[in-house]
């Protein structure tokens, strides 16, 4: 029976939350195709039974695990050869990766090796007369393309947070297979990591925050971001930024929200001094409510916002912080 195969690149860690969404997406496509949902779990020191059961509970029909110490970090020079072997063995109809840094690095290389095509950063799939059509935002989200892969297997990377995980169901059962005939060779590794540097980010992690306050070029400087951190502290919010603020060197790149930054889905997103470029909005398309503070009443951001204030943020933020604090006391 044909299959839709979702790659879960675990490295040393477990299976992250985003993979459950990927698996949910895979399972829906598989149902439409009348295929099985397969998950390939690659990494080192994986508890194949434990992690495998979890993937079954979230919709996989079968789980294939490649466990090897050389897969500790997701190095695409190594992983691509492993993924290629897995695909040749399982012969899936469609292969899915998450469109995160690892998936972006790996999927095109796998496509080249398998001599097939791929579509990146897809947000939905349709099955029409047995043909898989991927929906891909293009031109920074200003347009949508419907793309088909002319060769098999089709490969796609799936936008983070674009697909819902299935409800966890422990009654689901399936087979967990450890693939022990997949070769992994130390000589494949070409790139050496000399150092890992973490940049301290103040406050709550953007990805987890229910409320996010973000600043753009309109903030005017690194010190001025303090006003956003103040408001964020009062609201228990995370702080994000636009690409322009990152490029100016005001905030670390880890704070960039958008198409090529973080994809987030807070319930409230407060955009301050951000014009509302489509590439920025792409990162908050799952935000439930956008609030815009921008001195230009014609800024595109107001087209996406539920509430808006056309004012200089420097006069709005302090007063807003104070007023919210008062109101939240009651």
């Amino acid at each position: 029976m044909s299959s839709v195969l979702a790659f879960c690149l675990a490295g040393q860690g477990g299976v992250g939350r985003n993979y459950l969404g990927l698996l949910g997406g895979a399972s829906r496509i598989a149902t439409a195709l009348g295929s099985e949902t397969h998950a390939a779990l690659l990494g080192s020191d994986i508890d194949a039974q434990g992690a495998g059961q979890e993937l079954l509970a979230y919709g996989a029909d079968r789980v294939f695990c490649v466990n090897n110490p050389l897969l500790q970090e997701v190095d695409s020079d190594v992983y691509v050869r492993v993924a290629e072997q897995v695909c040749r063995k399982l012969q899936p109809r469609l292969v899915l990766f998450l469109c995160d840094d690892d998936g972006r690095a790996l999927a095109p290389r796998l496509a080249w090796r398998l001599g097939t095509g791929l579509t990146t950063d897809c947000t939905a799939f349709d099955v029409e007369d047995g043909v898989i059509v991927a929906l891909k935002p293009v031109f920074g989200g200003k347009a949508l393309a419907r793309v088909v892969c002319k060769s098999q297997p089709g490969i796609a990377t799936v936008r983070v947070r674009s697909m819902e995980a299935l409800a966890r169901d422990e009654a689901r059962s399936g087979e967990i297979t450890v693939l022990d005939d997949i070769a992994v060779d130390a000589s494949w590794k070409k790139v050496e990591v000399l150092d890992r540097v973490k940049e301290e980010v103040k406050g709550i992690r953007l990805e987890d925050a229910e409320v996010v306050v973000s600043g753009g070029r309109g903030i005017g400087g690194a010190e001025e971001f303090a006003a956003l951190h103040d408001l964020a502290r009062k609201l228990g919010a995370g702080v994000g930024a636009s690409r322009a603020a990152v490029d100016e060197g005001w905030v670390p790149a880890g704070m960039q929200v958008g198409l090529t930054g973080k994809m987030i889905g807070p319930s409230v997103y407060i955009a301050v001094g951000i014009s509302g470029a489509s590439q920025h909005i792409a990162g908050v398309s799952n935000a439930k409510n956008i609030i815009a503070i921008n001195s230009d009443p014609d800024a595109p951001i107001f087209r996406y916002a539920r509430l808006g204030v056309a004012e200089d943020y420097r006069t709005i933020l302090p007063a807003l912080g104070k007023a919210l604090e008062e109101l939240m006391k009651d």
Partner: protein
Amino acid sequence: MNIVVCLKQILDPEIPAQDFRIDQERKEPTQGNASLVISPFDENALEVALQMRERAGEGRVTAISIGSSSGTLALRKALAVKADQAVHVAAEGTINSFTAAAILGAALKKLEFDVVLCGRQAGDWDFGVVGPLLAESLGIPCVPFVTEASYAGGAIQAKRQTLDGYDLVKAPLPVVLTVTNASTNNLRYPKVKDVMMADRKEILAWEAATLLGGESPDASIEVRDLFIPVHKVECELIEGDNATEKALKLARRMRELKLV
């Protein structure tokens, strides 16, 4: 050290969504008032190339661009910031990422290179595949999401952006790097005199068809249609006599709507 940087010339990706139009037949956007620019991440890649050459105190930067025969603006700009050489590969018809990777791969066979730099993704179709495809087709490693790089002891050291910081990595030559934006790699401004000089420099003119030797690279994907999504949000603009009043009203509305 020979550095090749791949520059795609595209319609300005910053035009507001409300001005964006497409031609359904061609499945391409219409130009309208949009100007042509170097795709933003390719500007970052060009800056990284120039910095690598500066740090090494030697080396040659070659800029290459594939497109319609009139599309040399990106290359002129590259020459103006002192790229040593520019190559234009003329190609007819739609050049998607897969065709571009095949043509670049063929062009690289004619150029000497130690490092190939690409943008992480082109600012039009947002595919983000050419760098890794090139690496795979050339059989060399690829380091993605690089913000800075230098050449040291026959290898490349690069900063690779991660979710919460960066990795310092070392890669052997030859290698493909894909570049992402950082405050350290905004493209420098050219001097006026260099812009004028650049206009007189030669741009090598190659043909995609010749490079590919008659083979047509099968893209394996097909864009069935292209359309503009509708989105509708009614914005409630908070009015007031002064900023304090507006802030207060906003706070109240946020509370009423249970947003905080």
